[in-house]
C-alpha cells in the first residue's frame, strides 16, 4: 500500500539554508520519522535528524511539522492526507544542521534548578510515602525532555532576550515536582521560581500543555498553583510582616 508523498525538508545550517522538496514512498501506518529515514537512506545520506527510541519515550526527534512542534516518531503520515508535509528544526533554538537544533539552553537551565534535598536524618529504605502523595510529582516526572514546551513558549520563541531570565515550562514543572515531592526539604522553591527563573513572565496561554506528548498538565497543575501560592505570600500583609520580623527563610 505504498504511495508517494511530498515532503519539504529544511536543509542548511546556522549560516544558510532553505526548504527542499522531495518525493518519498510512505507505507501504511508510517510516521514522519520513517519517511525522513527513507529519504536519508536513499536520497540524502547526510540529512541530519535526531532520534533514539522511535516510540515516544525519549523525546529526541522533536521538530516542527507543518509549523507545529511535534515528535516525528509519534506523528502519523496519514494524518496529513495528500497535503505536503513540511519539516523544520525547532524554531526557538539555534539550528545546527538540517532538522537538528542546539538545545543546550535546556541543559544549562537544568543546572540552575537547586537539586532535591532529602531529610538529613532519613535512612535509605525507611522512607514511607502514600501513593496519593507521590502522584502529583510523578505526573511531572513523566517528562521526556523533548523540549517541545520550551520551543512553543512565546516568552522565548520570538524573544531571544528573554532566555536569560526565563527557565521555561519544562523547568517550572521540575520546580513544581520538587516542591510537591514528599521528601524534599529545600525551602523557597516557589519564590525562586518567581524571582530567579521567570515564573512571572508566563501569562498562561497553555501552549506548552497543548504540545506536551506526555499530556502533562503543565499550566493547570504546575504553573498556576505555583503562581497562586507566590501571589498569596507576596501580597498577604500578615505573612509579609512575619517575614520581615522573623527574618526567617522558608515561609514559601
Amino acid at each position: 500500500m505504498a504511495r508517494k508523498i511530498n515532503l519539504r525538508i529544511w536543509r542548511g545550517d546556522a549560516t544558510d539554508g532553505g526548504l527542499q522538496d522531495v518525493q518519498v514512498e510512505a507505507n501504511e501506518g508510517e510516521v514522519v520519522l520513517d519517511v525522513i529515514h527513507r529519504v536519508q537512506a536513499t536520497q540524502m545520506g547526510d540529512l541530519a535528524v535526531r532520534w533514539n527510541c522511535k516510540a515516544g519515550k525519549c523525546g529526541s526527534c522533536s521538530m516542527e511539522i507543518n509549523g507545529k512542534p511535534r515528535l516525528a516518531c509519534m506523528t502519523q503520515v496519514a494524518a496529513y492526507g495528500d497535503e505536503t508535509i513540511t519539516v523544520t528544526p525547532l524554531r526557538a533554538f539555534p539550528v545546527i544542521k538540517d532538522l537538528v537544533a542546539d538545545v543546550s539552553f535546556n541543559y544549562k537551565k537544568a543546572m540552575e534548578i537547586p537539586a532535591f534535598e532529602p531529610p538529613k536524618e532519613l535512612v535509605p529504605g525507611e522512607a514511607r510515602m502514600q501513593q496519593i502523595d507521590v502522584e502529583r510529582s510523578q505526573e511531572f516526572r513523566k517528562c521526556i525532555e523533548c523540549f517541545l514546551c520550551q520551543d512553543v513558549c512565546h516568552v522565548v520563541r520570538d524573544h531571544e532576550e528573554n532566555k536569560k531570565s526565563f527557565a521555561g515550562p519544562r523547568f517550572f514543572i521540575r520546580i513544581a515536582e520538587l516542591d510537591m515531592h514528599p521528601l524534599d526539604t529545600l525551602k523557597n522553591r516557589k519564590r525562586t521560581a518567581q524571582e530567579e527563573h521567570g515564573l512571572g513572565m508566563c501569562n498562561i496561554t497553555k501552549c506548552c500543555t497543548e504540545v506536551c506528548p506526555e499530556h502533562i498538565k503543565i499550566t493547570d497543575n504546575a504553573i498556576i498553583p505555583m503562581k497562586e501560592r507566590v501571589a498569596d505570600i507576596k501580597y498577604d500583609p500578615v505573612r509579609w510582616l512575619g517575614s520581615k520580623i522573623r527574618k526567617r527563610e522558608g515561609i514559601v
Partner: protein
Amino acid sequence: MTTDKSTLERHKYDVLVIGAGGAGLRAAVEARESGLRVAIICKSLFGKAHTVMAEGGAAASMGNANSNDNWQVHFRDTMRGGKFLNHFRMAELHAKESPDRIWELEMWGALFDRTKEGKISQRNFGGHEYPRLAHVGDRTGLELIRTMQQKIVALQQADKREHGEYESHIKVFAELTITEILKEDGKIAGAYGYWRESGSEVLFEAPAVIIATGGVGKTFKITSNSWEGTGDGHALALKAGANLVDMEFLQFHPTGMVWPPSVRGILVTESVRGEGGILTNSNGERFMFKYIPDVFKDKYADNEAEADRWYEDQDNNRRPPELLPRDEVARAINSEVKAGRGSEHGGVFLDVSKRLSAEIIKKRLPSMWHQFYELAGVDITKEPMEVGPTCHYVMGGVEVEPDTAAAVGVPGLYAAGEVAGGMHGSNRLGGNSLSDLLVFGRRAGMGAAAYVKQTTAVPVAEATVASAAARIEAPFARSGGENSYSLHAELQEVTHNLVGIIRTGDELKDAIAKIADIRKRSANVAVSGGRKFNPGFHLAFDLDNMLLVAESTAKSAIGREESRGGHTRDDFPGMDMGWRQHNHISSFDGIQVTVRKQALPFMPKELFSLFDVEELKKYMTPDEVAKGGSN
C-alpha cells in the same frame, strides 16, 4: 579536513565513562564521589540513552510485597533463568546489593509507586518467584535515568559551590562518538572520538575507561533497541584486547509490536503479563500451557483455573505459564506462528482487557495504552494486542572480574551494564537489567577509582593519535564506495534470517561467510557530504562495530552445539550438561574474531546449598552434583 595536531581538542580526566545510560551514570556518580574527575561520553543527548525505554521495573528482593523474599530467592531465580550459565559471583552480588541500590535512588529523588504501607511497590515478572520489581507505572527506566541525570547535576552544583564551576569535576560530553580506546605500554591511556555535531576530533587522556555502552540490537532487523544499540562497547573492548563472553546468547523479548510495519519490534512490556495479560493463538487457545519445560513443571500452573487463582493467592497456586522466563515464551510464540496459528500479521494475541478494568490498565500501563492507541490504532482496554518476538538484549558481553567490573586482560578497562557479560548466563530475567546496571555500574566506578589511585597515568603517544585520526578521515577520502545504509540493511537481513531466534549449523556457516563479505565491503564505505552532523558518516563507524559483534555472535553460536536460553539450535534441540560447564570466549586479532571454550567458574558450597539437589540434577552432571560446590 584532517585534524591538525596543534589544534586537536584534548582533555585529561581520571576516569572516562563511555555511555550515559543507567550503568554509565551510576559508575560516574561513584567515581566522582570517590574524589576523582570524571568525563561522561554520551552518543546522543544527555538523558536519552536506551535505559529510558526500560518499562517494567528493577528487580530487588526488598520483600515489600511478599516478606518471604530475600537475596537467596532472587539469586536462585536468576541462576535458573540463566540456565545455570551465569557467573555465580555476579548473580550473588547482584541479588545481595540490588535493594540498597534502589533505596539509594530514593535518596536521590526517585519516586517509585507505593504499597499501602507507603513502601516501594513491587510487581510480578517472569521467572521471579515473588513480586519483586520496583516500578513507576510502565516507565521505570525513565525514572532511573532521570534520577541519575539529576544526581549528576546535584554533584555539579556541589562542585560549583566548592570549585566555582559546574563542570570542573564531572562533565557530560553529549553527542560524541568514541572510535577507539587507546592503550600505551599495555594499559589504558585514553580514548579518541569525534563530536557528532561538528565532526571535529577529540582526544581524552585517562588512566581508566569504563565501558557502559549497552547492547547490540541494531545488528538485527527486528529489535526493541534504539539506533544507539550498535555494540560500540563490545567492539571497542575487543579491539582494545579484552574478551567477550558467550556472545551467542541474545534475548528475543517475546512481546514486541508486530503491526503496522513501522512499529515492528517496539517493546510491549512484560508487565502486561505481570498484570494478568494472557497469550492466545488464532484459535483462541491459551497456548502457553503446552510449552512448560520439564525443569519448570513444578513451578508453573498446567491449567487455566490454577493460573487464574494465582493472581489472588500466590502461596497455594503455581504461576501462570505466561510468566515463564522470556526465552521460553519467545520460543513458544515462534512455534505457534510457524504452525500456522499466528495472527494476521505473524504474531499472537496478548490480552489484558479481560482481566483489568480500563481505568486500571490506563493507570498501570499508561505508556502501553498510549503506544498502541497512537501508533497502531488499538485500544488495549478493549481489544488484544498483536505481539511477536523482538531482539531485545544481549546476555553476552565483556568478560569482567565480578567484584570490580575490570575487563579481564586490559589494565584500566572496566565494563558494566548490558555491555558486560556473565551476570545473566544464557537468559536474563526481566527486571534484572535495571538492577544489574545499578549494582555493577557502582562497582565499576569503585573498581576504576581504586585502580586510578594506585596507577600512574601514561600519556597518549602522538603516533597513536595520528592513527586514530587517520581512521576517522578515511571514509571521506573514498569516492563511489559502498553506502553504509545499504550495508547495514544487508547485515540486518543476514542476522535476522540466519542468526535469529532459531538457528542451525548450516545457516550459521552461511551467516559467517556473508558477514565476512559485508565486512570486506565495509572497508570501502564512502561518505557523502561534510563532517557536520552527518548520519551517513556516523553510521560508517557504527557499522564497523556491528559487523564485529555479528561475527562474534555467529561464531559463538556455531560452536555451541546445544540449545539453552537465548541460543536455540534446531539441529541440537536439547540442553547439554557438558556445555553448561563452558563459556565461549571471543577475542580479536585485528583481522578476525576467534572463539574458544573456557571453563565456567563453579559456585562454592554456600551458594550450591541454596538449591534443592533434585533441581540441580536437571542441569548438572552427577559428578558436579556429588561434589556439591567448588570449595
